[in-house]
């Protein structure tokens, strides 16, 4: 499901709007993911505090959003552009790639709640496709 020029434009426009609240979106998305999909907590047993608003959550949310921002910038070539991130997830973090979809859904719920007028069905499908492509690029080095 490759991105059309229209999809890419929609994603860039959405992300420009979201960028002003990036830290909040990141922290919210991560916090919700851990609560709504408790199996994801298994990757964060080294954190003392998994509650919403906690320090590890805030800093890690920032990190993840920085990754998505990088993906938006490299939207024309995600599979080569995200190779390093893929290696990180594949060899170091060893995150089951099924979780990329889960995080994507969490991010979208937060964006829908914070930017309801911008997250129209057309923007939703473009962003969903984009996140699927990001997931694919992140899975590139897994096996």
């Amino acid at each position, binding site marked *: 499901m490759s991105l059309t020029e229209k999809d890419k434009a929609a994603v860039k426009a959405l992300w420009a709007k979201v960028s002003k609240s990036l830290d909040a979106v990141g922290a919210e998305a991560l916090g919700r993911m851990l609560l709504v999909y408790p199996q994801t907590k298994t990757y964060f047993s080294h954190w003392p505090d998994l509650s919403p608003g906690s320090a590890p959550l805030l800093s890690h949310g920032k990190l993840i959003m920085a990754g998505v921002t990088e993906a938006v910038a490299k939207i024309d070539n995600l599979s080569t552009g995200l190779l390093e991130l893929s290696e990180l997830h594949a060899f170091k973090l060893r995150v089951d790639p099924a979780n990329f979809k889960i995080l994507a859904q969490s991010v979208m*719920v937060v964006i*829908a709640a914070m930017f309801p007028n911008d997250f129209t069905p057309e923007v939703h499908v473009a962003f969903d496709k984009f996140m699927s492509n990001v997931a694919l690029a992140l899975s590139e080095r897994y096996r």
Partner: protein
Amino acid sequence: MVKWTDLERSTVRAVWEKVDIDEIGPQIWARVLVVYPWTERYFGSFGDIFTTTAILNNTKVAAHGKVVLEALDKAVKNMDNMKRMYAALSLLHFQKLEVDPDNFRLLADCITIAIACKLKSALTPQVQATWQKFLAAVVEAMSSQYY
């Protein structure tokens, strides 16, 4: 069988109270068709559902959204009995409508997003967790008669 606490029951009801079926039903169904276009395969009788504009203006799409939310209303009022309550509907979706049950999960995701647009910050992380637990139970009940 899924166990519900009193807090979970009241949370689901509180979310549902904010949902106007006539308003949100059409929105949800439009999202399903736009975001997951392969679902068009089930709606050959709906006329033009092949562009976003057509989908957003299609009265049959809007009507179907309301039908689905009216069925969801039954689950809100019968949280302990979903499997039995949806048995006939599940069988219908399997035998007659031949719907891939993975689509129930896609629909659930669209419902949550449409509700997020409506409720905004009122859909707190805790409320979202409870709401998605509820929808997962609905999806399971709707998939239960597939064999």
